């Protein structure tokens, strides 16, 4: 299968995603410049982490108008898989491909550390290999990870099973203590109604090898690879 990794001015984790998808998991992966005229054939598009446009004005606010986004909206409309990691998640929110918005961490500081997240929905193409309820150890590194959605929106997410990951303790308990940034309902990752667009704050590409501290992130890539293989 083929991953297409979008590169915006300011993206930082594009090469890390390429390494995980290609060197660690053995799949084809190409970079796509945000102004590329043609969109490559791909099974899954990755919007990687970083500081697109310096996070100026609002994180993801300017990237979401990049020429490539039209292609990505079309691609998602056709059912293609899209995963937005950290800044990628923020861009998907600004673009309206996912509901809600991102605020600054409630502690007002950038946080880089390993956290635990619980797989709340293992029926998505991104989490089938994780298993329902499985706790994953994956690092976060962000200043704006405080996911916000209003009461009505939150209810919809819950009813539709769109909440995919929640911050939790090592034993899976979802508690306030385990929430690193104030995100509503400890939400660390969500999927759209259709289930083909995922946004998550933690970085699976940084946790795909034991040398880096955890291999749990690889489960997310493996789910995507398996799903693409079945089609």
């Amino acid at each position, binding site marked *: 299968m083929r991953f297409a990794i979008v590169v915006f*001015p300011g993206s*930082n984790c594009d090469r890390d995603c390429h390494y995980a998808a290609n060197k660690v998991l053995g799949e084809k992966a190409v970079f796509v410049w945000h102004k590329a005229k043609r969109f490559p054939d791909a099974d899954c598009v990755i919007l990687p*982490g970083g*500081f697109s446009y310096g996070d*100026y004005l609002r994180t993801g606010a300017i990237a979401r108008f990049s020429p490539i986004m039209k292609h990505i909206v079309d691609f998602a409309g056709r059912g293609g898989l899209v995963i937005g990691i950290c800044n990628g998640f923020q861009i998907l929110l600004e673009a309206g491909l996912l509901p809600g918005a991102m605020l600054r961490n409630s502690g007002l500081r*950038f946080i*880089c*550390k390993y956290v635990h997240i619980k797989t709340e929905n293992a029926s998505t193409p991104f989490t089938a290999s994780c298993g329902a309820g499985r706790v994953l150890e994956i690092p976060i590194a962000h200043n704006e990870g405080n996911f916000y959605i209003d009461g009505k929106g939150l209810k919809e997410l819950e009813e539709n099973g769109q909440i995919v990951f929640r911050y939790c303790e090592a034993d899976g308990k979802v508690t306030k203590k385990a929430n690193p940034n104030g995100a509503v309902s400890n939400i660390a990752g969500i999927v759209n109604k259709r289930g083909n667009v995922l946004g998550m704050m933690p970085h699976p590409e940084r946790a795909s090898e034991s040398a*880096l501290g955890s291999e749990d992130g690889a489960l997310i890539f493996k789910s995507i690879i398996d799903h693409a293989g079945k089609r």
Partner: protein
Amino acid sequence: MIENTGAIDKDIYRALGLRDEDYRRIIRILGREPSPTELAMFSVEWSEHCGYSRSRSLLKKLPRKGRYRVLIGEDSGGIVMGDSAIVFKMESHNHPSQLEPKQGAATGVGGIIRDIFTAGARPIASLNSLRFGPLSEPYNRYLLKGVVDGIQFYGNCLGVPTVGGEVYFDESYSGNCLVNAMSIGIARKDKLARARAQGAGNSIIYVGSSTGRDGIGGCSVLASQEFGEGDEKRPSVQIGDPFTEKCLIEATLEALSRGGIVGIKDMGAAGLTCSISEMAFDGKAGIDADLDKVPRREEGMEPWEVMMSESQERMLVCVKKGREDEVMRIFHKWDLNAVRIGEVTGEKVVRIRNKGRIVAEIPPDALADAPIFKMSSKRPAGSGRIKRLNARKLPVPEDLNKVFTKLISSPTIASKEWIYRQYDHMVQAKTISLPGSDAAVLRLEGTKKGIAAATDCNGLYCYLDPYRGAQIAVSEAARNIACSGAEPAAVTDCLNFGNPDKEETYWYFENAVKGIADSCRFFGIPVVSGNVSFYNESPKGPVYPTPAIGMIGIIDDTARLCTRGFKNEDDIIILFGETKEELGASEYLKEIHGVVRGPVPEINLEREKRIRTAVLECIKKGYLNSAHDCSEGGLAVAVAESCFGDGRRILGAVIDNLKEKIRLDALLFGESQSRVIASANKIMFNQVRKIAEKEGAPVTVIGRAGGRRLSIFRGQRKVVDVPVKSLYKTWSLSIEKRLERGS
């Protein structure tokens, strides 16, 4: 031909930092009076910051030979390892950070990283060596918060992980904090870039942000002067734009890989003046540049303002004739300015034009040939006296638990987690040792190898004994590197001192440099790059002499990475080295007794090397489960830190076999050198002992890991006994608590 201008007033050139004899020399060189632009150019190129007038001759004594081939570039240095070149350097940004900590630190990070990627290397890591006054002072709290904010603001956005460093707190740094930023980059050894302009007809292209009035004269006015009471010389501080720099990194590396670039240089201190003059000088060529072409952010700038501006995120590129469009297209793709502002000439002249007139015409050799000052040094009065310590006047405290808890919460010793959590230390997916260990370790993908990095310097040691203190800084950095499983390979330094025109201050500088030179030469570790920062003084006086050492090491097999924390219940705890009765210069003496004096602990380079070699060999063979060197706070603190590890798993310890018959407080908290606390499965000890004997390194099993308490015995008597989790809490929350206490 430049128009002749009249004589320049003495007050003007003196205000720019030039002496009468410098001015006379300029007239001799030019054969006439200098124009205002020329005067500005000489004043910055000949300033201490750019010209190193007071330090150049001493720095030549630093060794440049080691196991790996050494690379010395124009603005950075490094080593060659296989097909790769590892480029690294450390630089200071002390005075701007004291004024505006966030932007001062941010632009410090930006500047050092530019020196790395303009060499053609992708920056893969940053470290920072910081010093502040006590956190009991509100301004020092403000500085710490601001500096950390600046480093995270800039470094995180660039996608360069900030993986290590050190932070010290001492009254000496109140009024003049130290912010030393180090960066490491990797390149293919055949793809390195030089910072020179060559080939008549080739183009000079300006790349990056537009030029404003930022930091005008920052070079000769800021860095070459102390902070006076009035702070009238409060010049503008540059604002960093990490997004532009990130784009510059990508565009530069892309452009360098395509070819067509003859040379490239960062516009750092003294901006255009420095880059144009030095590129011409290093390329043995001339440059003709037109300031009208320079992208400007402000109106009505004088030519000398354009030449002296220190606006950030700008570079100068020398491009082969005919390939200009190709190169500029790459920079334009990243939405960066790229403009041809001049060309290389066969004449050895730097010619600057503005509004159709020539405003400067100087031979580059003259600009690069900053005067070398003859310095005088004098041993400070009382420097012998202050090394004497009458320990009999200091009783051993009754309640050592209380002392231990207080010491471990002192900011210099306490956990720096509040700081490093704000740094993205994982981006680029190379970091294999997380913060909370002796050295940061980065893997090199596609190989089994890794790079270890650490910074070290104890300013108090250097104040009490600059020669010995500097040797210890080098030794400790090497020891930290070895504890991670790496072989020390090369050094960069950032030498922070007071006003060198004061003989006593120069004496410290001279002896510190000698200490670095002798220890590096003995260990076979070359000094490949570095920086000197003088005039670190406040009305209270100079800071402690602080020659910060940044060292890198090579791990042959990252599977043999070693980290600080104890790993298993019942592992034995091993002490490499011996503890002597050395209370002098210790953090314990200062924090608990309020005494700042004493002989600095002895350092015997031969012994240090043997012990370090033994530790490293044991790690490489897989005999040790953890290793941590003993430094501030002594053995007890080192054991505690090993109990804590990186905080994810905390183990207690029982230390019940301390043999030395010395004062109890010296045994626990004295800072004797060349000691390492390690742990291993007890069946490994025989092998460890064999290696230690072979190297002639003392080695003792002093206890075992495990349990919920940290207990230390002297004979049968328990002298320290604390629950390890609550000790961890005290240690890890100390800095955060002090910052939040606010007033």
